[in-house]
């Protein structure tokens, strides 16, 4: 196995067959389990080009930014991503694991992915041919399958700041160090009058719950986008049902399909209650 420590983007992109190593929190697990035996590993950890973050009208997080830095950089901005980053692994994992790695692995249980979907983020990919921007909705194609081509780097993710009405919830068998049984992100962009709900760990890809989004949009329309939303119990329940209806879960030792659907409904109701309060 050959290992290259890239000092520049050019070096990182030189071999299209190479496998990138960022925090290694997914890749090394694969190697340890004998699932992956890469011929050529390129460490991208030290690349400053992947490390920039900026907040403003557009929010940008470099592909090489670890979760601890996501928490620092975002502060009050994009609270759903902050909440997701907080639930990932343990302090050690958050110090090493990166957004680029979460996208590189593209597991249906990746905790940042429903948030990126609900933020309607763009994934910025870089290859020797140049830059390519792919909306998240076109990025994830299946479990561990994405539109990223071999040798393409996740340079950054970008989205329009959607304001503070956001929530991320995660159901797991314990509170820390846990792969989601189901997770959910809700973003209410009050300024642009948009609602997006995305579900993780309940299907082969991240799933947008479109009917639930429509219902919520109607509720906000009715009560006023600039005001707190206090939906009726029936409306909240219906929102939960619609979200759960979008899920396509399976049974495994972490949880049954029935439970996953159930917990999606609960999380959706709670997310709506939380985001409704924040105006």
């Amino acid at each position, binding site marked *: 196995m050959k290992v290259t420590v890239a000092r520049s983007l050019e070096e990182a992109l030189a071999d299209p067959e190479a496998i990138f190593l960022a925090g290694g929190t997914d890749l090394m697990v694969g190697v340890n389990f004998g699932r992956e035996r890469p011929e050529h590993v390129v460490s991208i950890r030290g690349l400053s080009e992947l490390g920039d973050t900026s907040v403003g009208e557009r929010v940008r997080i470099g592909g090489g930014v670890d979760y601890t830095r996501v928490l620092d950089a975002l502060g009050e901005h994009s609270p759903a991503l902050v909440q997701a980053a907080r639930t990932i692994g343990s302090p050690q994992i958050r110090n090493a694991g990166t957004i680029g790695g979460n996208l590189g692995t593209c597991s249906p249980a990746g905790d940042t992915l429903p948030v990126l979907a609900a933020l309607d983020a763009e994934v910025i990919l870089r290859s020797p041919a140049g830059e390519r921007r792919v909306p998240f909705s076109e990025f994830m194609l299946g479990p561990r399958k994405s539109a990223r081509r071999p040798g393409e780097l996740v340079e950054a993710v970008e989205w329009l700041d959607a304001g503070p009405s956001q929530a991320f919830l995660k*159901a797991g*068998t*314990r509170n820390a160090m846990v*792969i989601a049984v189901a997770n959910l992100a809700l973003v209410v962009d009050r300024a642009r009058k948009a609602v997006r709900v995305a579900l993780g760990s309940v299907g082969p890809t991240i799933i947008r719950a479109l009917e639930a989004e429509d219902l919520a949009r109607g509720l906000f329309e009715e009560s006023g986008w600039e005001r707190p939303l206090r939906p009726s119990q029936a409306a909240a329940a219906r929102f939960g049902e619609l979200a759960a209806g979008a899920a396509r879960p399976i049974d495994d*030792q972490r*949880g049954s399909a029935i*439970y996953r659907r159930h*917990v999606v409904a609960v999380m959706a109701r709670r997310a709506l209650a939380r985001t409704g309060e924040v105006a």
Partner: protein
Amino acid sequence: MAVMAGGARRLEGPAKLRGETRYTQDLKPFGLLHVKLVLSSYPSARIAGVDRQAAQAVPGVVAVLTAADLPAVEVAGPDQPLASDKVYYVGQPIAAVVGQSEGAAADGAALVAVDYEELPAVTDPYEAMQEAAPKVLEERAEGFDDVSIHGGGDAETEPQARPNNVSSVANQGRGDVAAGLAEAEVLVEGRYLMPGVHQGFIETHVTVAAPEPGGVIAIWSPTQGHRFVRDEVAKVLQVPTGKVRVISMPVGGGFGGKVVLLEPLAALLAKRLGSPVQIALTRSEEFQVGRPAPASYTDLKLGAKRDGTLTALEIGMVWDNGAASGWHAGLAGVLFSSPYLVPNYSYTAYEVSTNKTPVDAYRAPAGTQAFFALESALDELALKLKVDPLELRLKNARREGEKLPDGSRARIGLVDVLEAAGRHPLYTAPVADGEGLGVAVGGWGGAFGAAAAGCRVEPDGSLTVQVGTVDISGSSTGLALIAAETFGVPVERIQVEVADTASAPQGPVAGGSITTGTVGPAVAAAAADARRQLFEIAAEKLEAAAEDLEISDGSVRVKGVPDRKLEIGELAMGGEAHPPVLGQGRTRIERQSPAFTVHLCRVKVDRETGSYRVTGYAAIQDVGRSINPPEIEGQIHGGAVQGLGRAMGEQLHYEAGQLRTGSFLDYELPTADQIPEIDVQVLEIPASTGIGTRGVGEPPAVPGPAALANAIASATGVRVRELPIAAQLLIG
């Protein structure tokens, strides 16, 4: 009691905290070779061939060896150092790739191609008992470990017709269960499931073996029983025990899972290659190759009168032993009948073999399984009878002086711990909305057996206590306290040496909460003997009668004459003038002194998601005589957490014989945020044997699962009989 009051923190603690302790993996003998094992990918298969060409070509690979390259051994199939022709479980070692570095060995191992002829496998114990199921073991296989280590009686086994893949049947009982059940006015009945679990120690299995002059093989191992390792390796190598020397290394967690595993193979490889070799498992190998605790299925019927008097207890158990014969059944039968007086009792348990990793001991083996069922059932009964759960237990508890299952009338403290639990604030404080309170009892038999100890006085005036039992729990610090108090010097002046097998006195395997109870009396006797010898010498030099001497401030003094004194070291250094001081202690504990504990658990359940949080926990335990309070508290904390871990998340989940929870991401040990403060309350009801101690390590690992399940039932009305307790079972 001057020395012991307050006890002592671990004598070896500072070295561990500073990272100075040298564990087995830190050993780097000259010329050390590294071994990577090629493990079976099939639950059952014939090995048609092993292609090692590609592996041998890897730079740094020294040898690729299979069973055919090693002397034939007389070991049951699943326990063979390397599988000779058949594999019985996924993870069974087939070949050893030996390299100059770990990397070379691993690269080589990845290139070994095993040609398997897949055989039908059975991984569910109930399917295994069907007529048509494939036979897992050719014959009853004697495992490495055995029940005697854990202080259990023999299973009364029935040799007659048994279901398929049942290696033995344990039958125990008294009275007439059918009549007892008929007489019952209230009945509780259910099946309780506990999955297999791994001990979860931090240090995975590791061992180093090296050839020594005279055909001796030296083995360094973090084993719980180095003398046991010596005997097993000698048996496998077919050499006298004197040809094997085992050096006990610091144990990075054992919990019953580290007695003997890789040592016979390491010895065979070292002998064959003429070099020191190290075998160290990675975490995922550990999950497949290590010996976990068996899964159990318990069918229980408990009958009682309306007034709460128990009339009958009927138990049917199935132990899923993986590819082993198993030995838990007899123990569980005794434990089921130990806490309560039930006039009619019947217990039948099957030891079943399946194509999964062979099982062995885990802290309080059979205890956690038995008490999960029994204490859940008692809780259910209390709810049905609408009586306080502690009252119900007190009504039926075995009281001091009543005959125990082994026929003795040893002093026990069950009633005392129950009464203390009733006064505990966690029990008496009101229960909030959405909160639940659970109680459960746990118990364990305790120490018996023989041990010897030596005690030397060193020229610097300190004492070296020599024992043959490994320290897995802080026990050596306790032994030092015993020696210090008996001899009359501060504990800092004591070294406890776990000598290698060539010079160690006899001592039991460290397991089953027996070390302090069996080795402690021998240490006390050895220290007393050394003191007597020292006084003999001092009496002559100080021209005083031995009865008039005392030890204080590191000197032997004549009582009442402060100036007439000699330093201990000076006396011991007397050279040729008098015989040296070498104390000896030899003791045997004949009867067990059972120990009981009550755990209290408070839980809050989110009825919408089913997720729950343990909000309060207390352990009340009878420890007999307390030797070292800080370490007792540590043992109780650790045991309680392990019990809660099994209750909340740990499980070896297999699909078609493949382990699906073979990493710490999937195998959910409890995390710090899941565990509340654990309040420990110690009761000292002296045992009638030895130096009055009771086993401390096992009891706290017993009640956790029932305590949590009972708390959850109290919070939600949902009775969970299956571990780990999953959120999906609790939604409202």
